[in-house]
């Protein structure tokens, strides 16, 4: 993975000094809270319900075991013993003292990490495919470009005070695992007719109050032009994006207002001025950065391991785990392993300090010392020998990291919600836990099969509810918490936005609501049809009809019953 050189180190050190002084001036009163808020947000520090939350950048989701151990240390020393992995491949600590944040940044810098631009109206951490470099369906490894763009976005002077936050995702595989269609800019690495490498550029996707899938504004952008072209996009957005209404300030609203074609025309015009200028990427720099993502020292192995195959047939629990949590690898004899952070009873995406240390050890023993974070809030060991899967599974299981549920209903995406977040209208984690509890029978889960259940505690959609096959959105009605349900959303190559099925429900009704939706699927599915296929074929009508057919008992006696 990428390693800092002296320039990277110097910039991070200067940033810590700058930030330390900003904190000092805030504490002394030289900076007002209004002035400081913008500065601390650009450093990932949010004021939450109970304490400050610090969001640390994990560029394109890649971590070394050393960095994971540092998280464990931060969790113990500065937080309450755990961290929370997010849908943008970052990690958050929820119980942070302002006075200690400069020291935490210094700790992070010692392992080549930071919290720069993890919040605020600026270009955020760049996300990518968690299987980059190892995926069997990869066309081009996107990580060198992601790192080059990380450096380009870091402290970009012109685009630090945009109308709103700005998120870039990049995918290099046939299947999109980076949710590019719901990003401000979504890049796909592609080849043109002559075999040249470049990007298909999507712009204006997003979730929140107005979910929109991005529009392709350029089918092929040569790789060397990526920074100048993005600069043109950002310059148009910085000047013309709306600033009068926070809910209409994302680039998607601008693109929608003037149309993707007109937006593309303006970008092309802007680009002509800087195209082929000094910001053009060089082959030398691409080669340098790419050298950090070279192939690890793989052993030459048979395509399939006899011991592994034997264990699969003899051990059902192991074979279930392999079926759900082990992914194909482009190198014979290897596999990528997903460690589930969706154990029943634990908030989705949470890992405690002991687990973090343990995961770092697993990475060192089984996977070249690297860990990836998925935007579904799980972790990946990307380079495991098939012959070692059994022992890895046994170890992971003993630490609660081998729940065999990847891609199943209990592998929910979920934001921290009202328990932590001051933006949230409603709690999300307790509802996720209740639903997971209702669907604890593994055979039933396997029968249901592939399904994405995504939940957000408010319209900001950190839990990606719009693109969940089933989406749950927490809403506030007259001071109490309600949940709106949508069906038919999807991420990936066939991205779509879910449709709301009807009036919202109370928290206590939610497990039964999900149960009823699943019953309709099981009743109406054809053979081998996934939930999303059935939902697409039938639309929301049969789900709606069945869910609202009879009153749903709620475990909470108070409040209005949606079916009453």
């Amino acid at each position, binding site marked *: 993975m990428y390693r800092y050189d002296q*320039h990277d180190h110097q910039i991070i050190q200067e940033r810590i000094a700058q930030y330390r002084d900003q904190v000092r001036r805030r504490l002394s009163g030289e900076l007002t809270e209004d002035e400081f808020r913008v500065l601390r947000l650009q450093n990932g520090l949010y004021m939450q319900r109970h304490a400050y939350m610090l969001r640390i950048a994990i560029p394109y989701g890649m971590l070394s075991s050393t960095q994971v151990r540092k998280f464990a240390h931060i969790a113990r020393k500065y937080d309450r013993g755990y961290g929370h992995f997010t849908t943008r491949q970052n990690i958050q600590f929820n119980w942070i003292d302002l006075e200690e944040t400069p020291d935490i940044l210094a700790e992070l810098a010692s392992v080549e990490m930071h919290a720069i631009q993890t919040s605020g109206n600026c270009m955020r951490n760049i996300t990518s495919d968690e299987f980059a470099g190892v995926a069997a369906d990869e066309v081009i490894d996107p990580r060198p470009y992601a790192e080059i763009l990380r450096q380009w976005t870091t402290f970009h*002077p012109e685009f630090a*005070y*945009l109308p709103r936050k700005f998120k870039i995702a990049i995918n290099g595989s046939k299947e999109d695992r980076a949710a590019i269609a719901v990003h401000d800019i979504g890049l796909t690495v592609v080849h043109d007719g002559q075999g040249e490498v470049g990007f298909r550029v999507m712009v204006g996707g997003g979730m929140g109050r107005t979910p929109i899938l991005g529009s392709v504004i350029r089918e092929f952008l040569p790789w060397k032009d990526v920074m100048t072209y993005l600069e043109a996009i950002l310059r148009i957005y910085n000047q013309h994006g709306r600033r009068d209404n926070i809910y209409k300030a994302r680039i998607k609203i601008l693109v929608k207002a003037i149309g993707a074609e007109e937006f593309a025309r303006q970008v092309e015009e802007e680009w002509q001025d800087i195209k082929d200028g000094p*910001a053009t990427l060089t082959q030398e720099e691409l080669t340098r950065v790419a050298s950090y993502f070279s192939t690890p020292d793989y052993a030459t192995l048979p395509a399939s391991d006899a011991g592994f195959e034997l264990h699969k047939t003899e051990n059902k629990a192991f074979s279930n785990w392999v079926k759900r949590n082990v992914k194909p690898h482009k190198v014979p004899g290897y596999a990528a392993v997903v460690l589930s952070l969706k154990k029943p009873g634990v908030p989705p995406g949470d890992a405690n300090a002991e687990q973090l240390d343990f995961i770092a050890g697993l990475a060192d023993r089984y996977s070249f010392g690297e860990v990836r974070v998925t935007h579904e809030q799980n972790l990946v060991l990307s380079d495991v020998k098939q012959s070692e899967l059994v022992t890895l599974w046994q170890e992971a299981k003993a630490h609660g990291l081998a729940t065999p549920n990847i891609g199943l209903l209990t592998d929910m995406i979920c934001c921290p919600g009202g328990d932590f977040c001051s933006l949230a209208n409603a709690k999300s984690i307790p509802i996720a836990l209740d639903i997971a509890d209702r669907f604890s029978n593994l055979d039933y889960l396997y029968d249901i099969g592939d399904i994405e259940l995504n939940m957000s505690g408010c319209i900001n959609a950190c839990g990606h509810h719009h693109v969940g096959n089933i989406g749950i959105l927490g809403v506030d009605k007259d001071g109490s918490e309600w949940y709106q349900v949508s069906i038919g959303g999807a991420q990936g190559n066939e991205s779509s936005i879910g449709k709301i099925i009807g009036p919202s429900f109370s928290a206590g009704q939610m497990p039964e609501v999900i149960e009823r939706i699943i019953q309709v699927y099981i009743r109406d599915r054809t053979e081998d049809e996934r939930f999303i296929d059935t939902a697409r074929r039938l639309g929301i009508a049969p789900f709606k009809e069945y869910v609202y057919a009879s009153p749903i008992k709620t475990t909470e006696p108070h409040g209005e019953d949606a079916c009453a």
Partner: protein
Amino acid sequence: MREIIKDKVIVQDDWTVLRLAEGEAPDAVEVPAGKVIVPLKVWQLQRDSLAKRGDIAVWFASDEQAKELKEDIARFSLIAVDFPKFADGRGYSIAYNLRSRFAYTGELRAIGDVLRDQLFYMQRVGFNAFATREDKNIHDALKGLTDFSEKYQTSWDEKSPLFRREHRDGAQA
């Protein structure tokens, strides 16, 4: 007279900024004598009379575009860009365009809600003068110009990205 930061030092400055009061029309407002920085709109609407004076500068509101002054840019030795709120970042692109696209070489001054923690970025996109907010200590603000000694990407101040300027090592084989 007030103090501003210009070319990295604190200097006395005798320009005044004309801001229209509510209801004042840019075509009718009377531009006082002396060195005045007038709104772009006032310049555009009173160009004939103002063009005769040698002591006029213009300032851009954050929703105006650099290209609106395209034909006249070379006439001015001072152009200002207003930051109504420090978190309104449009002024950065106005400055960049004035410098890069329209080759403006005179004094480019940030006015309005101009604070220490934004000066480094402002300097990078082409500002060389800063009328920092008067309730803040300008000597303190001056320190904001030197927060960083290295930068990754190009802007007005740095024509070459880090990867073209410095030798950077790749992974050790």
